[in-house]
């Protein structure tokens, strides 16, 4: 089969023949073709099977509104189901296959559904598959799912890459037809920054598909000239192959640019880019979509929208039929007939529902006025049509024009309600457009060419003026106002064969009536009950027909019946495009400490802590279980010295004359009298009295503090402090800036930590216990002059320090610390050993500071100073938070020492069943204590402090484990704190 239906002319590059395959058959087209136009040129009529009844279907339109010609493009992971052949730009090597059939397309086994149609009406599965209930999930749904639907996913990862981006303009022009091009010229000549976007790969819209002249030349040529002028201007960005799919707040539009879909290979470049366009003004020039007329068997291959038949002939030099009939309710259908006749097609008939012929019919055409088509014949392709006057006319293509519906979609994305216009029998944009939007041309109901050009110019002129640009005075290109009179005729009311309304979802006029009969009368209910207007085309060619039938059933007008809500996206957007480059590791940033590289070299196992990657433990040779590594690290710290990177803790630099007063207000305990050179543990409450965070704050100078926060709350505490500073106490002189990234900070912990640091800190700094006692801090230098901050604080309970150097020295510092520590057998330790040590010591972390616990629960009630006010002070006094039987943080040890505790277990009395009613608290943190040789835990339990020594059950139904535990002090190791003060 060669291009049997190809004619002369068209906007094709015939020097570039392109080979492609459809269902394995090799075919040829030209550069400039779409897949649909190339199929038509090759005489292919049957391109797919319908959704429900598996009826044979052909190409119906020439644009993104296509309901039928959905194909699977490309292969394997690159395969994309439900691609509209009508907007698929042909490329050499394109591979397409039809969808939704079992066996060959021509002999689909599932076509049996068509004979079962009486049982498959709207909502049939709600009625048919009700019983037995258990069958639904296991049998009915899988069967329905496998027999319905369109294309299939490959099930493989999408190998293409996608990107996103941001664009800015003064005036965004959506659609590059006559109105859009005219608007773009006017806007651009005024000096405004303009973006002109169109879903087509060739700008011009209807100028490319029709034959009317503009400014004395062909429409297509005028469009080319306009595009050339725009392309030469610095202030214009032309975006072909770009669909503006959504109108969002404040003039922001979503755009999908298809960058490599028209190429055989993406060559490692993004296939599509999802743009967010910030516009000051937008002019919607989206044109109009032709609609069909519902009549008996109106879905056969060869029955197409009239304007599309015309477009295939004019733009793509492909005639969908040799003998074509036209069925119309408006003047535009007649122009189709004359255009086709000019291309040499045999016009079999013009059937007009109206009484008076508006234009002259091509020679030889039968003209039937006041008539309509009632039935058609031809299973795999149209053979004949039957008219209401009884005549049968042989034809292989029927061009149907039911009038034009303005593409108001984007005007409705902010809930504008479209308004009905009788003269065009269609909805036009209402009064509540998205901010900054104007509408021009056919989208605004201006269906004639001259009016479209004029409106485009006028709207751009007005928009440019509003933005303070001086609009250029330009002469409007001359064009005619063609005849466009129409009538409100939507469906042929006859008791004949099924009349299709929504081709994509197989919804018939009868289904709409059934919906009404069964009480689903609102348009939104109609949509959900019948699926009218759903799926990839969102009913672009069907909605108005459905509304008209529903209106008739309701006995109301179409505007009274209303439209369903238009929502983004205007046309389908691939999930891959929405994800952009946020795939795999690129989903979110990763934060690394300065010791990361060194830890990697030591084969550390890392754990995610928010965005941070922290070393969890450092396995040594021969260690086969994580516990071996962690136990060793914890023991080394208790016996000698270990080093842990604690850079991830939030560090906030606080300066100002009122810094001390500020801290006094945000911390529950006092900070005003903290001497310079000292660190204090601080507890921060939320306004509701619950504990928010804790940490240490060091006073580096009279007006200078540095606060640390937990890793998890670094950002939220900073935000909270900024709120306090700016909104609660704007009168205080206090300034905050994050210093988390500035300093690489290491905990050096263990009885040998001072010995180690003496080899690090320059000798002029005295580290003796007298000169630098527990909770001292100061600025020192290390390794011959590198500035550093030293804090004597301890999370592990051992003699310990934290030493910070500017981050640029972090990598060198960890290596140097390990080197000089070698003589003490220093170990690096990770977050697991850190956790073991702090649980042994009874220090709370996020597990305990969970947002639902108070200072009293934590045993820190004395830290809520009553000598001063602070955030949360008052509400912490609420009686419910101070009940006698309130929770207390306690330690827990298994009665059977070889048993392991589990975090999350709930406590109940030994004599009561483990039920919610008997719940007395929960285990927050557990660890194996190498120091004690058994599992230990921290947790909250009611009246805990009065119950030391009591045995309770720790029930963990999630893991199916209940064990007996003894309530003990939360301080398992060195409760007096002698080690850290040594």
């Amino acid at each position, binding site marked *: 089969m060669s291009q049997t239906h190809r004619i002369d002319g068209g906007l094709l590059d015939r020097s570039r023949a392109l080979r492609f395959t459809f269902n394995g058959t090799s075919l040829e087209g030209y550069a400039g073709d779409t897949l649909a136009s190339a199929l038509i040129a090759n005489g292919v009529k049957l391109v797919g099977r319908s959704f429900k009844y598996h009826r044979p279907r052909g190409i119906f339109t020439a644009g993104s509104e296509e309901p039928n010609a959905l194909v699977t493009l490309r292969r394997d992971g690159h395969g994309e189901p439900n691609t509209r052949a009508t907007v698929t730009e042909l490329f050499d090597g394109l591979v397409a296959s039809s969808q939704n059939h079992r066996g060959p397309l021509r002999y689909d086994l599932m076509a049996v559904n068509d004979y079962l149609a009486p049982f498959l009406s709207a909502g049939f599965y709600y009625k048919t598959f009700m019983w037995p209930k258990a069958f639904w999930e296991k049998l009915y749904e899988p069967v329905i799912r496998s027999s319905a639907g369109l294309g299939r996913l490959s099930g493989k990862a999408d190998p293409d890459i996608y990107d996103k981006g941001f664009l800015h303009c003064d005036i965004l022009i959506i659609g590059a037809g006559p109105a859009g091009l005219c608007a773009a010229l006017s806007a651009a000549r005024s000096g405004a920054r303009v973006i002109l976007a169109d879903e087509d790969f060739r700008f011009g819209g209807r100028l490319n598909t029709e034959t009317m002249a503009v400014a004395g030349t062909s429409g297509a040529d005028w469009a080319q000239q306009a595009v050339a002028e725009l392309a030469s201007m610095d202030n214009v960005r032309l975006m072909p192959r770009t669909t503006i799919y959504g109108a969002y707040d404040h003039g922001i539009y979503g755009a999908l640019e298809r960058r490599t879909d028209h190429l055989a290979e993406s060559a490692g470049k993004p296939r599509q880019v999802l743009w967010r366009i910030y516009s000051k003004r937008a002019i919607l020039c989206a044109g109009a979509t032709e609609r069909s007329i519902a009549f008996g068997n109106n879905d056969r291959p060869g029955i197409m929208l009239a304007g599309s038949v015309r477009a295939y002939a004019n733009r793509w030099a492909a005639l969908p039929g040799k003998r074509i009939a036209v069925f119309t309710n408006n003047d535009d259908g007649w122009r189709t007939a004359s255009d086709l006749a000019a291309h040499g097609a045999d016009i079999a008939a013009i059937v007009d529902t109206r009484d008076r012929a508006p234009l002259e019919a091509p020679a030889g055409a039968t003209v039937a006025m006041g008539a309509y088509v009632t039935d058609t014949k031809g299973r795999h392709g149209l053979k004949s049509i039957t008219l209401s006057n009884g005549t049968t006319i042989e034809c292989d293509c029927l061009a149907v024009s039911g009038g034009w519906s303005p593409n108001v979609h984007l005007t409705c994305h902010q809930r504008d309600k479209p308004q009905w216009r009788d003269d065009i029998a269609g909805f036009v944009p209402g009064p509540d457009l998205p901010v900054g939007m104007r509408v021009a041309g056919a989208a605004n109901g201006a269906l004639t060419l001259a009016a479209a050009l004029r409106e485009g110019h006028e709207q751009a002129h007005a928009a440019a003026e509003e933005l303070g640009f001086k609009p250029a005075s330009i002469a409007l290109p001359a064009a005619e106002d063609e005849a466009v009179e129409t009538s409100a005729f939507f469906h042929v009311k006859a008791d004949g064969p099924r009349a299709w309304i929504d081709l994509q979802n197989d919804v018939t006029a009868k289904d709409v009536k059934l919906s009404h009969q069964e009480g689903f009368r609102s348009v939104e209910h109609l949509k959900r009950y019948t699926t009218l207007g759903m799926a990839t085309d969102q009913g672009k060619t069907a909605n108005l027909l459905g509304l008209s039938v529903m209106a008739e059933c309701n006995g109301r007008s179409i505007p009274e019946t209303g439209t369903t809500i238009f929502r983004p996206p205007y046309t389908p957007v691939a999930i891959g495009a929405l994800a952009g480059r946020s795939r795999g590791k690129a989903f979110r940033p990763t934060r690394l400490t300065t010791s990361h590289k060194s830890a990697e070299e030591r084969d550390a196992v890392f754990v995610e802590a928010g965005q941070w990657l922290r070393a969890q433990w450092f396995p040594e040779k021969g260690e086969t279980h994580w516990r071996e590594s962690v136990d060793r690290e914890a023991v080394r710290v208790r016996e000698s010295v270990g080093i842990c990177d604690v850079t991830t803790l939030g560090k906030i630099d606080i*300066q100002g004359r009122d810094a001390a007063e500020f801290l006094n207000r945000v911390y529950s305990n006092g900070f005003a009298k903290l001497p310079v050179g000292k660190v204090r543990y601080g507890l921060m409450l939320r306004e509701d009295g619950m504990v928010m965070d804790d940490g240490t704050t060091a006073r580096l100078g009279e007006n200078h503090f540095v606060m640390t926060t937990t890793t998890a709350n670094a950002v939220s505490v900073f935000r909270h402090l900024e709120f306090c500073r700016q909104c609660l106490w704007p009168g205080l002189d206090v300034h905050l800036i994050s210093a988390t990234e*500035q300093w690489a900070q290491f905990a050096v912990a263990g009885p040998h930590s001072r010995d180690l640091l003496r080899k690090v800190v320059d000798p002029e700094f005295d580290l003796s216990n007298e000169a630098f006692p527990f909770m001292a801090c100061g600025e020192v230098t290390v390794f011959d002059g590198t500035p550093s901050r030293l804090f004597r604080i301890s999370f592990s309970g051992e003699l310990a320090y934290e030493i910070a150097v500017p981050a640029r020295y972090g990598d060198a510092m960890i290596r140097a610390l390990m080197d000089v520590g070698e003589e003490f057998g220093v170990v690096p330790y990770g977050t697991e050993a850190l956790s073991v040590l702090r649980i042994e010591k009874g220090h709370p972390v996020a597990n305990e500071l969970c947002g639902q616990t108070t200072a009293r629960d934590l045993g820190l009630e004395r830290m809520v100073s009553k000598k001063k006010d602070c955030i949360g002070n008052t509400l912490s006094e609420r009686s419910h938070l101070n009940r006698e039987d309130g929770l207390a943080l306690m330690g827990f040890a298994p009665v059977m020492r070889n048993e392991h505790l589990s975090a999350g277990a709930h406590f109940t009395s030994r004599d009561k069943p483990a039920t919610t009613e008997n719940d007395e608290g929960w285990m927050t943190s557990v660890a194996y204590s190498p120091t004690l040789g058994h599992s230990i835990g921290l947790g909250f339990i009611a009246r805990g402090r009065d119950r030391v020594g009591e045995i309770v059950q720790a029930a963990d139904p999630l893991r199916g484990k209940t064990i007996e535990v003894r309530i003990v002090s939360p301080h398992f190791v060195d409760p007096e704190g002698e080690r850290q003060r040594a």
Partner: protein
Amino acid sequence: MPRLAPSSPLNGFRQEFDRLEITEITDLALVSIASPQGREAELASAVSGAYGIALPPVGSSVEADAGEPRFLGLQPGQCFALFERQDEGPVDIIARKLSDAGYYTDQSDSWAVLRVSGTRCREALERICPLDLHPQTFVTGAVARTVMEHLGVIIFRDGEDSFLLLSARSSAPSFLHAVVTSAKNIQ
């Protein structure tokens, strides 16, 4: 023990693309300067006395004489001084000039600094930067805080076709990946 050797967040990364170059800048010092409440005029006059310039409003920057800092206006009551790194501590350099007229915090090690330059730099930045970088909107010398690929970024236009991007040191590899991906994606 030998002295500690500094390392830069991105190991001095540099890569050229078509009319586009991405370079890590490693020799800068950065100090935040906050103006004490009620003493804003003192800071302003200290700056003007020391450098002969007025502090820039938020969103813009002003450069003192060659070799002296450029001040970036970042938020009300706060600016950053950006200058070439010297042996002396960054805060000490500023404090020597401005005495105690402001509160100073060293930020030199908090940020990884990338210069994205070349005639296609805006095209690459379009993929990650939500701000309008048109030369009439974001003029040479303009500065802003924004977010790119979930990361906080300070962007400063230091030339017609050149931008400095400052992002947190710890996430610098992720940030670099985002910028390099943008460069690759437009090639």
